[in-house]
């Protein structure tokens, strides 16, 4: 085989390994050598990477074009409507309100629900094409073409990379990926979170750390700097677990997740649910899992889940159900691991004087 033949056979592999992020140092050096010395290969390389970039940039725009047109679709195509674009940009830059779409490409998303957002353009049921989203206040629920439901809570900055991938620089995002969205990815400055079929939340209160909370199912949390598909995740979280990752990729357990009676308005730092219970802590230094205590403001009702990661429910002992004086009380969901740990101490902090009930599993003897 001549040198030229060898170059032809190895160049595609080297480029592909580079694009896939699987190139070894040796492969990378060989590719650099070829690009440095061969003008033709350099031109070919740029052509290929340019196409790869355009495909990433459009996020499968061609595929979306095949979808049947919907009467509710609204396109914000600034290239064809410079006045609208200038107005939208001015709103963001001058007034600091509203949302900006940086490009005419992006992901076509359906607006499911909005609350307290600055723009009046987003009507429920309409579809807009988004690339970068800057949300200074309010909350928006989106449906992506992949079927993924996404809630964004301000202040938030994120980028819709494609229908299966968003990047969060700031804010709180909850994703319910449904049946088709397995593999959905959320990037932050520190982490890459890959969904394995679940509902999970990501909180980026600042550039320094990321919080990940799993409500259902399972996610894998990778170091954002990982490039190889074979790199092991930092951690794998299951339902009821949450972790905080800092800039040095140190992980710490998030002990409380507070919310209203459902998964709405969840928070890892207390939030403003108006509830009586503000935090719950324990003395576990090395828990079996990264479980959190779930504080549901007003969450106690018949059939309320008893634990964060098990299907047991709280029910009344007879047909009258949960005693009326307990209905609508704040509920703390504990987790099932460490149930044999007799040294376990749980500290509950309340915002005002309160009566605390400790509910006991009916299969066990009531505590003395």
């Amino acid at each position, binding site marked *: 085989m001549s040198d030229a033949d060898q170059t032809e056979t190895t160049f*595609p592999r080297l*480029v*592909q390994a*580079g*694009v*896939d*992020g699987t*190139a070894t*140092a040796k492969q*990378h050096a060989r590719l*650099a050598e070829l*690009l*440095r010395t061969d003008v033709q290969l*350099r*031109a*070919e*390389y*740029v*052509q*290929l*990477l*340019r*196409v*790869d*970039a*355009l*495909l*990433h*940039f*459009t*996020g*499968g*725009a*061609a*595929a979306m074009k095949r979808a049947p047109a919907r009467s509710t679709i609204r396109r914000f195509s*600034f*290239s064809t409507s*410079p006045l609208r*674009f*200038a107005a939208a940009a*001015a709103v963001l*830059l001058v007034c600091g309100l509203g949302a900006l779409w*940086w*490009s005419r*490409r992006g992901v076509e998303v359906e607006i499911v629900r909005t609350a307290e957002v600055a723009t009046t353009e987003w009507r429920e049921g309409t579809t807009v094409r988004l*690339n970068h989203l800057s949300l200074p206040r309010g909350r928006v629920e989106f449906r992506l073409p*992949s079927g993924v439901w996404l809630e964004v809570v301000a202040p938030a900055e994120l*980028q819709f*990379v*494609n*229908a*299966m*991938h968003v*990047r969060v*620089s700031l804010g709180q995002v909850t994703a319910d990926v449904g049946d088709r969205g397995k*593999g959905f990815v959320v*990037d932050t400055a520190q982490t890459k979170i890959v969904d394995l079929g679940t509902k999970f939340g990501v909180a980026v209160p600042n550039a320094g750390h990321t919080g990940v909370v799993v409500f259902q199912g399972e996610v894998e949390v990778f170091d954002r*700097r990982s*490039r190889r*598909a074979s790199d092991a995740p930092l951690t794998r979280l299951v339902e009821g677990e949450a972790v905080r990752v800092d800039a040095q990729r140190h992980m710490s357990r998030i002990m409380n997740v507070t919310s209203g009676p459902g998964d709405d308005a969840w928070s890892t730092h207390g939030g403003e649910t108006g509830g009586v219970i503000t935090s719950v802590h324990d003395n576990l230094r090395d828990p079996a899992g990264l479980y959190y205590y779930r504080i549901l403001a007003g969450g106690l009702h018949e059939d309320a889940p008893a634990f964060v990661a098990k299907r047991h429910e709280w029910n009344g002992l007879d047909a009258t159900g949960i005693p009326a004086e307990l209905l609508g009380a704040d509920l703390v969901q504990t987790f099932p691991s460490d149930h044999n740990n007799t040294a376990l101490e749980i500290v509950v902090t309340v915002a005002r004087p309160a009566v605390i009930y400790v509910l006991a599993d009916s299969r066990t003897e009531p505590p003395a």
Partner: protein
Amino acid sequence: MADMTPDQMSQFVERLTAAQSALHGSIHTLLAGATDAADVLQETNRVLWRKAADYDATRPFLPWALTVARFEVLAHRKRLSRDRLVFDDTLLGQIAEEYERQSARGGALSALEQCLQRLPPAQRELVDQRYLRGESVKTIAVRQDRAANAVSALLYRIRSLLATCVDHALTKDEPA
């Protein structure tokens, strides 16, 4: 920025918007396809906004913006950990020049859309999986029960076909 009139600002916004795919392409190419291209693009946009008042509107926007993007790539590269595989300054300069030469012919995005329409259904499906759904090569390979290398090679072939198709389309549109 404060010195710009509303018309100038509007024109700047329009040019910056039109340049997004080229800027992203340049950064993506210089970073050899790394996943952090979007972050560098965001930073480049911020710098371009800060420098908006310096821009001479009588000169082409794209070369100026590409130069800013190239410096942002260099700055980003310095922040990367040492184990990241990156090209040296000289090679980055050579690639940047080639990219600028190729992107001087506009219309690549429209050409690509047309070329995508011509792909056979199976190849279109693979493009959708990789770029619409953002699936990794490994994920696609597992689902299709094929070797990851085989999926990689097929993707390379598709990109190669698309690159040739785009090049032909742009050449055809050039004035004789």
